[in-house]
């Protein structure tokens, strides 16, 4: 049986705020057919989540209004349903999976109890215990999970449990809003496979909302691209990837960092850098106390970095990849002397910076020179800039501190920095909240580069950004590298991104470096099973 499970036509939704009604979706129409995997792709703010949530009769809060249009679930108009009917619909005929699995479950209730609740919710209980076990089995969760607390499970397992609950009543439609964004790539692939299998087995339609085009390239039956509240293109992935019609789609597609199917050594591949080590770690271990005894003495430790030897040489770019919790961020910060190692030694510019005894004593002058030469940019664009300072202050204060400019020529220097990262000069007197995430990340990069460092550590600087913005930042970094002769330690979990900017890559797992070498050879012939797994899990934009 075919036909539309969800039909949205001419949907216009707005929110009321001080300045009247602002339109969020401008006439969106789409149709999800029975048993179909429909992907709704768009950047943040494009209105994709708002569109998807109307399938459950939700409007954005506060102040959301339906201006025009019609949403029908199996032919029945959702927005004219009485309240009880809507409740039956939610969790009954439509299941919902959100982005963050750790906040989708109540931390004070056992997973099993929450699954039982989901089963009982819509009356037709039957044998609850049997059904819960069935549900767990269907999402490939071991039965012990039923008695576990949410905090005892990994993100992937939690998301499986959420999917199981969403499917408890064999809904006609499953709305999945970025369900894998918070997960590591290998887990991402597993959850996607699971959704795919469940769809084939139960015939549920899936409306999959994501910003990651590559993720759905191979799985979706059809996809629609949204931009600024409108669907700009719709079709099968094959059509779409062969010939995207809308300029925005083309831009989106071009921005996806990709790993070539067959990895030939890149033509511009340079020989492994041989220069002096700018930053070097020898036998590095970093531990954090995990549990404390009654008297406040650490009893148990978590080892984030376990015995790493690593050197970043002058004029090179080293990528450090690994899943979350692999210790790559800790390693990066320890390498800059921001975290104290528990064992081993860290050298910057050939001088001992810290070892197990603590940070090496340095004069204030030395400290300043060191800080200047080694810079770091962090992931979180929301908090990387002081909200109380103007961009002028943010950029000029470090330069003044390091004597790179006086108060007089600060203005000119700041303007130059803005030119370098391609931001308008009138940004100087603005405050961080006036900028988007990508723009803020540019400012953070400009700030780090204002001191003319030798080495820049980029700690997941693009992972929170949309693909097109991501591509811009990566291009910027590549250009700056060429212009300034900068060395990079590029920390990321996305292999494709690393390949874009680095010649060398080190793969980290559980605090150890399991494989390292030139990008081309590591990606073409990974020797470690873990690296292979990581590579296999990278979503690819299909070629046809």
């Amino acid at each position, binding site marked *: 049986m075919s036909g539309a499970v969800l039909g949205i036509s001419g949907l216009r939704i707005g929110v009321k705020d001080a300045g009247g009604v602002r339109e969020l979706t401008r006439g969106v129409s789409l149709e999800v057919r029975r048993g179909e995997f429909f992907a709704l792709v768009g950047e*943040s*703010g494009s209105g994709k989540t708002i569109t998807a949530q109307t399938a459950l009769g939700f409007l954005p809060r506060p102040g959301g209004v339906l201006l025009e249009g019609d949403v029908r679930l199996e032919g029945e108009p959702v927005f004219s349903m009485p309240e009880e009917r809507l409740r039956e619909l939610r969790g009954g005929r439509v299941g919902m999976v959100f982005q963050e699995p750790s906040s989708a479950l109540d931390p004070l209730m056992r997973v099993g109890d929450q699954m039982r609740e989901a089963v009982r919710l819509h009356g037709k209980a039957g044998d609850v215990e049997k059904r819960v076990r069935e549900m767990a089995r269907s999402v490939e969760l071991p039965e012990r999970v039923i008695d576990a607390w949410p905090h005892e499970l990994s993100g992937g397992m939690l998301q499986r449990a959420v999917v199981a609950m969403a499917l408890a009543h064999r809904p006609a439609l499953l709305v999945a809003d970025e369900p894998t964004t918070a997960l590591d790539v290998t887990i991402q692939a597993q959850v996607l496979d699971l959704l795919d299998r469940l769809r084939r087995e139960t015939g549920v339609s899936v409306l999959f909302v994501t910003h990651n085009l590559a993720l759905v390239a191979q799985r979706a039956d059809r996809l629609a691209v949204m931009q600024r509240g409108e669907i700009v293109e719709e079709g099968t992935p094959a059509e779409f990837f062969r010939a995207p019609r809308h300029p925005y789609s083309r831009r989106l597609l071009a921005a996806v960092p990709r790993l070539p199917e067959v990895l030939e050594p890149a033509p511009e591949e340079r020989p492994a850098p041989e220069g002096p080590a700018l930053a070097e770690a020898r036998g590095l271990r970093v531990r954090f106390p995990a549990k404390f005894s009654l008297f406040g003495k650490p009893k148990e430790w978590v080892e984030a970095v376990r015995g790493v030897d690593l050197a970043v040489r002058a004029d090179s770019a080293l990528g450090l990849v690994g899943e979350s919790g692999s210790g790559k961020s800790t390693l990066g910060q320890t390498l800059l002397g921001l975290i104290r190692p528990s064992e081993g030694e860290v050298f910057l510019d050939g001088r001992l910076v810290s070892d197990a005894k603590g940070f090496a004593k340095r004069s204030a002058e030395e400290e*300043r020179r060191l800080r200047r030469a080694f810079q770091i940019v962090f992931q979180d664009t929301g*908090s990387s800039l002081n909200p*109380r300072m103007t961009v002028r202050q943010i950029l000029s204060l470090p330069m003044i501190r390091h004597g790179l400019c006086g108060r007089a020529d600060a203005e000119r220097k700041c303007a130059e920095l803005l030119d370098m990262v391609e931001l308008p000069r009138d940004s100087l007197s603005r*405050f961080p909240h*006036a900028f988007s995430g*990508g723009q803020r990340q540019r400012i953070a990069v400009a700030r780090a580069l204002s001191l003319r460092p030798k080495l820049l550590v980029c700690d997941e600087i693009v992972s929170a950004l949309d693909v097109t913005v991501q591509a811009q930042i990566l291009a910027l970094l590549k250009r700056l590298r060429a212009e300034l002769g900068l060395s990079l330690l590029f920390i990321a979990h996305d292999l494709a991104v690393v390949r874009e900017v680095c010649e060398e890559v080190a793969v980290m797992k559980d605090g150890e470096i399991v494989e390292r070498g030139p990008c081309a050879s590591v990606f073409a012939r990974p020797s470690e099973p873990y690296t292979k797994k990581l590579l296999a899990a990278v979503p690819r934009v299909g070629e046809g």
Partner: protein
Amino acid sequence: MEKRRNADGRAAGENLSLARLRWNRFKSVRRAYASLVALGVAFAISLLGPLVAGDKPLLMKYEGRLLVPVFAFHSDAEFGGSRASEADYLALKARPDFAEGGNWMVFPIVPHDPLRSYIDAPEPPPHAPSAEHWLGTDGSARDVLSRLIHGFRVSMLFALSLVTVSALFGVLAGGLQGFLGGRFDLAAQRFVEIWSALPFLYVVILVGAVFGRSFGMLLLSMALFEWIGLSYYMRGEFLRLRNFGYVRSARALGMGRFHVFVREILPNAMTPVVTLLPFNLIGGIGSLTALDFLGFGLQPPTPSWGELLAQGLQHLYAPWIAGSVVAALFVTLLLATFVGEGARTAFDPKAERR
């Protein structure tokens, strides 16, 4: 996820500082803004003190000379009296020969000193409200309205100083705890816990008994305890903020500790100070009133609301005493609460994110 903040390109007003945005948001809460203005005006008026309520003329003419007795001392003898002490202008005005000489004087709106007793009135005090004494007089025949105005000034000055001193100390103590962390924080936190367990009222009474009950002494002994509450908030804010990207970035950029404390963290940690300020002010006014009421507050005969309240209780048959001071307290505290509400709205992180 990239924030949507300027995806749709916000119009003018986008480029305001955070402080400015918050002030605008505060002003948009009409009730709070009006309350702040009302409190400010009332405080400003009370600050004028003897220019508003006092028994010395603002300006007078005596035998062809223009005098400003509010600011200058004139003895009784100058006006043909016998005493060398300051002239009693109310009595002078009543003298039959005064007006005859073409002399005149202009009194403040409330022509009564808060300390002056009208004991020569025919009936025993307290006197009911009249054209002379708009809110009547108290048990010692002193003008209630004048004492209210001067008491308001004393209360506000006391509460403001208390809030300022305790905020300074609380910010410094809590800030250092959160900033330095580690052993210092641990030790300081234990000290604060022990300190906060001291019975506040007894200490205030004790200090008053040993060192006397002056304005400064009372302020000091209350400030000794008042800072604790704020230091908890500051400690928490500093602990939270020191792991923020811009603070870590500042450290990585080689900025000094002083810069990180003062420029990076402090301005962002002030939210609890500002939002709690109106409520702390209320607390300060309340505490002073309570201490005065119990007789452990400011030295009599300082005009004070607590002392008036106590009189109101003694003279329950004279409802104008208790009635007026309760009304004044009520209005003041209500206005301050409205201001506090507005401040809370202005600093609402949810509004910030939109």
